[in-house]
Each structure stands twice: as structure tokens, then as C-alpha cells.
């Protein structure tokens, strides 16, 4: 299916899967809902992707607004550069997370969303996760601006690699005594646990299909790109659609599309059409760059590199490890969900996860995209790289970009490193197949 874009920087025709078109429509619908919130008398909760309690938010008829996703949209639409500069003008240092600066800058410039309409002011800020401490500072800034209710659900960091009953009860207590009463107060809606169970049951259904889709990359060739394509796939479930019928429909639809590609032995669909030969299977750690997203993706697919698994598509939940939202334990399941997100996992857990991906997805190597302005992801990445290299014997490489600050994307530099890496993988592979590997 061909879609004509209106963006002047791009070629006129961009190829998209039918599922991508559907996804875009869903996102557009949600942004309209946000834009019309005030007119419709809807109240708005702002929250973050890791630890996003969408099912709970919906129980109070609140509309879910995700500042990270707004920053991503600004990045994709090439607005974020100006927003970042605006925030810097306001005194935010060059080293601050560029999601934060994009958001702050966007507010300063009228808070216009990706659909060209003004985003609503939140009625409540719900911080449900602390693995990234920047989130806390971010909401502190927003609270200054909006002077609204702030809820802070503290999620213990999984430092010892496991979730204990104590951790869960600690969170359930907060939910009962603090989070839910405050949400009732802000929204004026009484909490109904059966309503929550209903949403949770719907979440689990979509989650099953999401996992099926992400794991379809174990096929050779992989029918999906689990990083660049994966970002489209996680949009609805990491955002405002988890626990809705829309999400169930979308993931069912996507699953069928993927099944068709598997049956036909086809690779992923890229903006330039179906990918031809699958030459390199990669695991990627770290978020992507959004300001040059297509250019960045192209550097992979034009060399025949497909990403078969990524950690980034687990920041909003690690469903492939078996977790599902469980309607029979509604509050406990919300706690477990927050605890399990990728960014709440300790360094050894991340190493193990990536090592397992390398083996399970029969990958040729690990690539780390280190984000200049993200301390939360970057800390320990070199150690992760060395350790995964050691455990798998497969080559790893390191590239550096940023989330939404276009100044930190150097196409020639990234391309240089990627091509070197692909040729290095090729050399190693041909060496190994000849039985002369060191």
C-alpha cells in the first residue's frame, strides 16, 4: 500500500504496511481526543511509558497523555530541534534529557501537538516508575507549570534481579492508600475494581498477540524489523490503547499480516518497500534516534541488516518473559507490571536478556545505540557490550546518536561505524565458516 506524505524533506512515496496505516490512524484519533479534551469536559492524566497504568487511568475516565510520546512525535516531525533550543534558552543545560527539553520547549512555544492542535493541560501527573530519575525531575518541572495534583507511585528497583512479595505489597499499599484516592479526587469518579479487571483482561489478549509478533523474528528471514518496525508495533500497547478493544483489533490484524509474510517467506516492509535479502541479524540495545529515523533505518536495510530483537521494545513491559496483566489480581498485577519494565532491570539482568536474545534469535551480533542525553540507558552500556561479546563470542559495536536532538545525529559518522560493523560481522562469519576463526 502506498501513502503519500506531505513532508517536503522526504520522497513523496513511502511504503507502509496496512498495519502501519491502521496504527497511524489510532494515534491520530488519540491526539484528537487530547486536543478536544477540554471542549468535551474530559480530564487528562500525564504519565510515562515505563510504568504506564493505562488500565487504571481509564477507570477514572481520564485521557492518557504521554510527554515522551509527544517528544518522539516532535522528533519525527522535525520540530524537536527548535524546542530543545527553546528549553536551553530557558536555562536547561545541554546535558539534560532531550525528551524533557523537547517537552519544555514545546510548552513554551504554545504546546502544539503533532496534529497542529493545542495539547491540553494535565489535571494530574501520575509518576509510577522511578528507574529513570529524570522522570521525577521532569514532573517536578511540569508541576511548577501546571500547579496540578502529582501522584508518585514508587517502584522499587530490581537490583537483586527478582520481584519479591514485599515489593508487590509495598506498591499495592501505595495504590490503595494514595494513588487511587487521589485519582478519585481529581476525576470525581469512584474507583470500580471490576472495571479495572475488564481492562486488564483486554490488555492480556493484546499482549499475547504482541509477543507472538515480536517473537516471529525468530523465523528466517524475519518477517519484521523488531527495532524500527517494532517502534510502530509497540505504539498502541505502550501508550493509551492497552486495555482497549482497539488494541485487541490492532494486534490481531498485525498478527495476521505477519503470518502472511511468514507463509510467503518475506522479510520486513521498509519505507522503500519489502526488504530483499536478510544478510545480518542484529540485536539492538538502546532507544533509536527520532530526528533522522528513516535515514537511520535505511542505513540498516540497504545493507541487508534486520533487527530481530531489541531491548527498547521492552521499556513499556517485558511481555516476552511471560508477564501478562492478570484480572484476578488487579492491583498486584499493576505492581508487577511496573517492576518488570526493561529500564527497571538491573545491569546483570540486562546482560542476560541480551545474551539470551542473541542465542534465541540466532543473531549475528549486538549493536548498542548509545544516547547522548540519556544517562539512564547509557550507564553501563560498554560493560553490557563486553559481557555479551564474551558470553556469545559474537561481535558487538557501539554507535552514538540522540533521541530528539538533531545536533547529535551525524549521518556520516553513524554510517561509517555501521558499515564497518557489518563488514566486521561478515569477516568473522566467513572466518568461522572456514573453520579458521581465532
Amino acid at each position: 500500500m502506498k501513502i503519500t506524505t506531505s513532508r517536503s524533506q522526504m520522497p513523496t512515496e513511502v511504503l507502509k504496511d496496512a498495519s502501519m496505516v491502521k496504527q497511524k490512524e489510532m494515534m491520530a484519533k488519540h491526539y484528537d481526543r487530547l486536543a478536544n479534551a477540554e471542549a468535551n469536559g474530559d480530564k487528562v492524566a500525564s504519565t510515562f511509558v515505563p510504568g504506564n497504568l493505562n488500565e487504571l487511568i481509564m477507570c477514572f475516565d481520564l485521557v492518557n497523555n504521554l510527554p515522551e510520546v509527544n517528544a518522539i512525535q516532535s522528533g519525527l516531525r522535525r520540530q524537536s530541534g527548535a524546542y530543545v533550543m527553546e528549553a536551553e534558552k530557558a536555562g536547561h543545560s545541554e546535558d539534560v534529557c532531550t525528551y524533557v527539553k523537547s517537552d519544555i520547549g514545546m510548552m513554551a512555544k504554545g504546546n502544539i501537538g503533532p496534529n497542529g492542535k493545542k495539547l491540553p493541560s494535565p489535571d494530574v501527573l501520575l509518576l509510577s516508575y522511578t528507574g529513570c530519575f529524570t522522570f521525577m525531575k521532569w514532573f517536578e518541572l511540569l508541576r511548577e507549570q501546571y500547579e496540578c495534583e502529582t501522584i508518585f507511585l514508587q517502584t522499587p528497583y530490581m537490583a537483586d534481579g527478582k520481584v519479591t512479595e514485599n515489593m508487590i505489597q509495598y506498591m499495592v499499599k501505595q495504590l490503595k492508600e494514595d494513588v487511587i484516592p487521589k485519582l478519585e479526587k481529581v476525576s470525581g469518579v469512584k474507583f470500580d475494581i471490576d472495571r479495572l479487571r475488564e481492562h486488564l483482561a483486554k490488555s492480556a489478549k493484546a499482549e499475547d498477540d504482541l509477543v507472538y509478533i515480536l517473537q516471529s523474528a525468530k523465523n528466517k528471514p524475519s518477517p519484521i524489523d523488531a527495532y524500527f518496525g517494532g517502534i510502530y508495533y509497540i505504539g498502541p500497547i505502550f501508550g493509551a490503547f492497552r486495555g482497549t478493544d482497539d488494541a485487541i483489533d490492532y494486534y490481531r490484524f498485525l498478527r495476521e499480516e505477519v503470518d502472511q509474510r511468514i507463509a510467503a517467506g518475506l522479510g520486513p516492509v521498509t519505507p522503500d518497500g519489502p526488504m530483499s535479502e536478510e544478510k545480518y541479524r542484529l540485536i539492538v540495545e538502546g532507544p533509536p534516534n527520532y530526528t533522522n529515523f528513516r535515514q537511520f533505518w535505511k542505513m540498516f536495510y540497504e545493507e541487508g541488516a534486520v533487527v530481530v530483537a531489541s531491548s527498547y521494545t521492552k521499556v513499556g513491559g517485558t511481555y516476552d518473559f511471560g508477564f501478562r496483566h492478570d484480572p484476578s489480581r488487579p492491583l498486584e498485577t499493576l505492581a508487577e507490571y511496573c517492576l518488570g519494565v526493561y529500564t527497571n532491570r538491573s545491569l546483570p539482568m540486562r546482560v542476560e536478556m541480551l545474551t539470551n536474545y542473541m542465542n534465541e534469535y540466532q543473531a549475528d551480533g549486538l549493536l548498542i545505540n548509545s544516547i547522548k542525553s540519556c544517562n539512564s540507558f547509557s550507564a553501563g552500556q560498554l560493560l553490557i557490550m563486553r559481557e555479551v561479546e564474551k558470553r556469545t563470542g559474537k561481535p558487538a559495536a557501539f554507535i552514538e546518536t540522540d533521541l530528539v536532538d538533531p545536533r547529535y545525529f551525524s549521518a556520516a559518522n553513524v554510517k561509517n561505524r555501521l558499515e564497518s560493523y557489518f563488514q566486521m560481522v561478515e569477516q568473522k562469519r566467513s572466518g568461522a565458516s572456514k573453520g579458521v576463526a581465532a
Partner: protein
Amino acid sequence: MKTFVGIDLGSTTTKAVLLDENEQVLGRGITNSRSNYDTACRVANQEAAIDARFSLFRREFGIEEGGDAKVEEFLAALERAFRLEQFLEQLGDLEETCVEQVTGARFEKLGNGVKKALAEVFTRLRAEAPAMFAPDAVRKSDFFRDIAGSRYLAVAEEVARDAGIPYDLLLNVYDKSIIAVENRPPSGRLSDKFKAALGRVASEGVGVASELQGRVDRALDIGLEETYLVGTGYGRVTLPFSKEHIRSEILCHGLGAHMMYPKTRTVLDIGGQDTKGIQVDPRGIVENFQMNDRCAAGCGRYLGYIADEMNMGLHELGPLAMKSAKPARINSTCTVFAGAELRDRLALGEAREDILAGLHRAIILRAMSILSRSGGVEDEFTFTGGVAKNEAAVRELKKLVNENYGEVTINIDPDSIYTGALGGAEFARRAAEGRIEGVET
């Protein structure tokens, strides 16, 4: 004979290496990249072909470099004569091009005067040329633009004054012409120029010329077939070659360093705009690498800016820094702030050599950080790139490597600037044999 070419297109210079079938270097060539990669490739390639002829002469004479003093004297004379021939040819091209510029309203009145002046300028330039290529002459650069440019400007000023025409008219035609001339590699046949050079050497009476002539002729008759070419370097995407002729510069540097020093396990390359730390296995295959991100802080360009700022030549920085006993502590290697940092320090009364020594140390500190991220320094350690020629940088590197990694053999080849091109040429040789890239079988 079959030859294999590797071309390394750098941000500052373009290098070419010619290998023979036995993996021996036949020739090396270098030129400035001049923002015209196409020409830079052709010129570097041609320079390597010229150098290759001298290797063939030596082989014909059955000597290694530095063997027979008489023959070496002859070959040196031949090379100077050849360079002179080539210089004269390009000078002729420059004159023709300059004369073509003397047209239009601007020259309506003075056209003839300018043409006469140009003829005089070039006559003088041609007359002084042999002295520039005399045995003891020191040339600041081997690039035509640099040699011809500085002399043209000086001679034209005199001529303009004597003829009573505005100097800026002569400058103007030169400015319009030099880029075009620079972008045209010397066009004459190499063997003709060699013959002319031989004649010149004979007429100068270098004793052995006539007896060696026959052998030179034989070496000149050997055809050099460009069997396979591999391009690499930062500009490689724009190289005028197809994809299968392009290899990553990181892989080329790894392999090139391995060829120069087979025990190499770690390579540091500091070029114009990159610093790369590369780990290679015993076969020269890259295992890991790290390089600077888009910021070129602490790379060769940084020294370039510092040299400009101090009004010095790039090659003068190292020797001055070596005089320092008390290097300044400098933490910023930001190229953009280099000038400001320098002026700050000078304003504070710090000595030039101390500041320079501090700057060199800062560059190497940054390289050490890239090295450690790539996996550290393992024995043996090979340092390549333009900055490897700088003695002050080398001194700091040796010190810091020793402090951090203990006793490590550090290799620096005088031809290290050709490392990437050498690796490329070997990739070309392997590709021509139909071997999978980079793997010894």
C-alpha cells in the same frame, strides 16, 4: 604485471598504495583532498604509479633502497628531474589557463599588458624551476598548488610593479585558474616524462646515466595493469567506484597495521577528523573498534587550527612542544574553542611551548579514552595517521600507554599515513583472487 590499488580518501589528504602479486608495496602516492575526491583519487593513484616505477627501477638494478650509492644518486636525480618535468607541464597548463581568463570588460584596456606580464611571470617561473628541484633544495610542500602558488604571487608582484599594471589583476587570473589546474591531473604520458627526465639527468652529467639507461628503459616497458582497486576513507561513499570496491576504513586500517606489524593487536589512528581505536586479531581482522562521535575534538584538525592561530606550520608544532619542561594543564580539546583557549593561556603569560605541550597531551588523553573504550591497549600497539608524525604527540602517547598499560611495544611506521590505503590494496589483492574479504585461507 598485475597491480592492486588501495585508495584512502581522507578529509585532508588522499593516499594510494600499489601492491604487486606478492603483497609487496610497489608504490605510494599522496595528494591533498581539495574537496574534489574524484581528482584526488586520480592524482594519488598516479603518484603511486610514479613511485612504483622507481620500485621497478630498483628491482631492475637488483638493489634494496640505500644499497648502491651511485645508483641511488642516479635515481634521486631521476626523481628530481621527473618532478621538474611534471612541474613544468603543470606550469604550462597554468599559464594557458591564466591567459584564457584575460577576457571581458575588465581587461578591455589592460588586456595586452596583462598578457605580456603573464608571459614574463611564467618565463621567470620556468627559469627558476630547476633550482627548486636541485639536489639540496628544500620544498615546503610537494603539492603543485603550494609550490607554484607562493612563487607566482611573489614573482607577479615584481612584474606588475615593473610593468605598471595593477597586481590584483594578476592575482585575479591566478585565483580563477589554479583550482581548474589543480583539478586536472598532469595529463602527459608518464613514460614520456621519464624519458625527458632521463635526458635531463644525462645532460646534467650524473655519471652513470648512460650505462643505466638501458635498464631504466626495460623497467619502463613493464606494463602496470590495475587489476583491482579498493577505496576507503571518510569520503568513500562518494568514491567513484561501485560498492564491491569499497571497504570500511576501520577494516582497512586494521589490516594495514597488521601488514606493517603482524603482531599488532591494537591500532590507534588519529587522522584529520577521526580518532579510532581498533582491536585486531592475529590475522588482522577487526574485533572491536571505537571512534569519536561527530565532534572532532582532539583530532588532526585541532592541531591545524592551533597552527593557524599561532601562525605556524603544522609540522612546527611538535618540535616547539618538545621544548617544554612544564606542560600546561589543558582539558578542553574542543576544536571550536581551541583559539580562545590558546589566547586565554597566552594572556595569562604561559609560554608557547608549555601551552603546546599541554595541547598535545590533551589530544592523547582523549585518544586514550577512545582506546580504553575499544578494549584497551594490547601488545603490540601500532600508532598510525597524520598525528603519528608529530613527535610531541608520540612522546605523550608513549608516556600514557606506559602509565596505563605497562611495557608495550609501540610501532610507528614512517609511512603510517598510508596504513588505510595499504589495507585497501591488500583487500583488493584478495578480492581479485576471489577470496572472501579479509580471511586468509
